[in-house]
């Protein structure tokens, strides 16, 4: 017995939450992009295209945007390469307690993301483990500049994103019918050839889902570049933070937020078009 009214009543709480806490704020932000900035913390509701004009004409913003996409893409690509192997290993191992290996992937989530990011300072910093060790061993005379570089930012992002990639790839590997591999081998494939013919192509959806997730999360991050990068390594998220919290220029901050929102949404939409969002949901354990 399908009762449409009851159905609406059941989804109403979720819908209301989404409308009031997601759609409405975004809509308010969108309206803010047309407000006039007067001075720090003060804006007028006179509608203007000045913020959009500034964004579209000022190369400063474009540079940040391109850099953010570059760092996001690079991080996602490295995650893909580094994440595939552990995922494959967990899938292929005959180890009895596989769940333990999967649990290890979740363990980092038990510690605050910010604290995990801070820990890199003790590893990469001038007085960090690596520099101190190398100095004591006499391999270097002066500490290496590792912290506050783009490399450190990408390192921190990898640390944060790798479990997402591994889980996504693992889930798609797990969905492969293993008799397909037996079939390929019985027809003359070595293990490596069977991997190329069967396992790799059938695990690509998971890899693609992981790449998208890592890209979106990396390109939208601002804590990691804030803590591990220098001013030059700031990403678009830091720009937004700075515009809103530093300059108190809400209309411009809103404009930049909507830009990032639209661009990341665009990538997600392309992905959904070709891969289906369900893959990501699966990868998140749904």
């Amino acid at each position, binding site marked *: 017995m399908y009762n449409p009214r009851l159905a609406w009543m059941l989804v109403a709480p979720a819908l209301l939450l989404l409308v009031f806490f997601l759609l409405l704020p975004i809509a308010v932000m969108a309206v803010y992009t047309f407000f006039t900035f007067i001075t720090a913390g003060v804006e007028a509701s006179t509608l203007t295209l000045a913020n959009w004009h500034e964004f579209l004409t000022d190369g400063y913003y474009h540079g940040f945007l391109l850099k953010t996409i570059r760092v996001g893409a690079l991080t996602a690509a490295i995650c893909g390469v580094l994440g595939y192997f552990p995922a494959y290993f967990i899938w292929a191992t005959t180890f009895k307690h596989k769940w333990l290996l999967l649990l290890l992937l979740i363990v980092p989530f038990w510690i605050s993301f910010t604290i995990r990011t801070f820990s890199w300072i003790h590893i990469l910093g001038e007085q960090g483990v690596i520099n101190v060790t190398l100095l004591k061993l006499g391999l270097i005379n002066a500490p290496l500049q590792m912290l506050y570089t783009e490399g450190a930012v990408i390192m921190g992002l990898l640390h944060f994103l790798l479990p997402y990639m591994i889980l996504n790839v693992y889930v798609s590997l797990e969905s492969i019918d293993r008799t397909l591999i*037996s079939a390929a081998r019985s027809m003359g494939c070595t293990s490596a050839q069977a991997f190329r013919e069967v396992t790799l192509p059938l695990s690509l959806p998971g890899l693609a889902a992981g790449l998208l997730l890592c890209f979106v999360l990396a390109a939208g991050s601002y804590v990691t570049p804030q803590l591990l990068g220098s001013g030059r390594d700031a990403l678009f998220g830091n720009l937004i933070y700075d515009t809103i919290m530093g300059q108190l220029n809400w209309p411009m901050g809103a404009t930049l937020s909507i830009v990032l929102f639209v661009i990341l949404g665009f990538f997600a939409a392309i992905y959904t078009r070709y891969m289906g969002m369900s893959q990501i949901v699966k990868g998140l354990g749904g």
Partner: protein
Amino acid sequence: MADTNQTPRPETAGETRPAVEFRDISIAYGSFVAVRDFSLAIAKGSFVTLLGPSGCGKTTILRSIAGLVDISAGQISIGGKRVDDVPIYKRNIGLVFQSYALFPHKNVFDNVAFGLKYRNVPKPEIARKVAQALEMVRLPGSERKLPSQLSGGQQQRIALARAIVFEPEVLLLDEPLSALDANMREEMRVEIKKIQKATGITAIFVTHDQEEALSMSDQIVVMNAGRMEQIGSPEQVYEAPATGFVADFLGKANMLPGIVSSSDGARTTIALAAGQTVSVAAALPPGRAVTVVVRPQKLSVGAVPSGNRLTGRVVSTSYLGGNAIYEIDIGGGTTIRANTQISGPVAAEGQTVELAFDAAACVLLDEHGQRIPVLPGRQSNAKTSSASTSPRQQ
């Protein structure tokens, strides 16, 4: 009628080397022994079925030929060459799985061409052979389709084409019909058999379905708990089961325990635990415990002229049109099953009826469930294996 049971060996009557040979193989998974001391020689071009309940080791044996499981002891030869150390991809075998195992991301052409590609067959030759194989499984023109666009039966036909296209030395079929619905299963049964005959390929078929085994095989190997119970032609294993397990697994035979009460050298009278007596053509010492095995189809119900007679009360009747299946209580808590052609009126439940069966239509088992050889005149049907497939035959 002595020795009429020699199984015809298709085409290769002169060939002495078996297509596949197992010598004393054992296969263990950890401490669990799945297959124990299994020996078998399979003649070239024959259709051999490994039949048994799940967990009897039949699939494990099949997988060991393919190299998908390692044997713990013994040796396996394909075409006279030992393959124990030959990796799976060099064994040249065709495999058909229950789940079809078609590559979902490749179209029909690429699926069927797969084995040829890895045998470095030139492209025009591949195209020709794939077309030929698809013709054989009656799916020509389906090259560009993806497996997901085909029905279950069509997918299994493509899987068959894929397994035979590169002319492997043996075709291994692992319950290939189990995933299909009943109508499709019967159609595929005929089709597989036809293709096997046309190509002359040696086929090893694994199933738990006795009908499939009986209708398709040249030889049936009945397996139980990792061991071979019996090998023989379909008629041999059905008519002359070597053990109680075989009798029960193939055709749900009636098993009537009893004790030999008297014997005159040619005929033996057995007092059944059910309280009635039957007489069989065998010479057995009085006092010996035996089990009389009678197939439901060998029993006639109602007015009957000769043979052994039993009296019982009908517990249930299933009227099937041409014949009827009765469950009949013959006393002592024993219920037997009769599947008879209907000639007169159908016996109703509660009615007392006369049952009859020919003395030659039953098999006797000893106290260990092994068949007791009967008198010489009946021996022809009783041999367990033919020369071409007897274990460890020189």
